[in-house]
């Protein structure tokens, strides 16, 4: 019985690590796509893209750092109790993030490919296309492993 207990705990830990890896990969992918696309956009849109990217990066690190100990500390502060409950909900929802990322991965891949087809004359951009594609593929593999862990084995 206890062996089974630690197997469940181990799988939960593994899937949480995969989630964090996937999120980080996606942020890196977004950065590459943004760098690749930025020169083609107008000045105002460039600002929005950079701001959007900063928000996503902040949220990512917020999610990566989000764990029981952080939540406990916020609970101790008392006045942040509502925030803590919100963070708790987010942590539960975090289990679904790879499913959302899976869709984003596909969209990003399409964006990369279209961008490559349009700008294939620019040699400078070629390597920037490869990086997001490789990272998106990695994120997709992690997502699939995560989905298997959650749906087949996990508690």
């Amino acid at each position, binding site marked *: 019985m206890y062996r089974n207990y630690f197997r469940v705990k181990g799988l939960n830990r593994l899937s949480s690590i995969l989630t964090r890896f996937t999120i980080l990969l996606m942020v890196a992918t977004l950065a590459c796509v943004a760098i690749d696309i930025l020169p083609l956009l107008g000045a105002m849109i460039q600002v929005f893209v950079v701001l959007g990217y900063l928000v996503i990066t902040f949220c990512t690190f917020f999610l990566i750092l989000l764990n*029981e100990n952080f939540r406990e500390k916020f609970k101790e502060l008392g006045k942040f109790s509502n925030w803590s409950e919100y963070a708790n909900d987010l942590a539960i929802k975090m289990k679904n993030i790879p499913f959302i990322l899976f869709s984003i991965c596909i969209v990003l891949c399409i964006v990369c490919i279209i961008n490559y087809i349009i700008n294939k004359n620019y040699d400078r951009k070629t390597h920037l296309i490869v990086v997001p594609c490789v990272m998106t593929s990695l994120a997709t593999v992690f997502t699939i492993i995560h989905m298997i862990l959650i749906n087949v084995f996990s508690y």
Partner: protein
Amino acid sequence: MIKICTSNLNDEVLVYYKDAPLKFKKENGDFVAEVDYSTEIELTFVYMHEFRSKLWFLYMLFFYIISVFGLFAKLYEKSCIQLNTKVVLKPNSSNEVYNFRIHKPKNASSEIAVLFSNDDHSKNIFYDGDTNFFVEDPVAKKRKKLYNLFAALSWIAIIISVVVIVIVTLI
């Protein structure tokens, strides 16, 4: 089918029925598990620190490495406590619903850990009064200290290695 429900499912505490963990599904905001009707349903509530396993060092080392020196892993529980208690339900009919709550304190406590809140079923619920609370786990506590020491030493080693590599590269 007998329904076992809770509103605060703590995924660290596993509920066992017939030596297999119960699978809870979310229904209308509550977590619900179904078990086959029988005159006596024995549920075991288990919580142990992850360092309590036999192969704890390999377990820790494996996750420490794949999570890039613990950066991407959630932290291990600070409190080294354990719970292993049994609750026996004796339903009268096959469509009864039982609600329970798990109270997990930060440290070992004499507060009741598992409590079923159905007033109408109260006569059909039997607790093991001697084990229904979280107790301190000295073995896990000792191992946690070893892990902290290991993590601290490895991080010191990593920082020294990085500094050395940077200096060598610059020279």
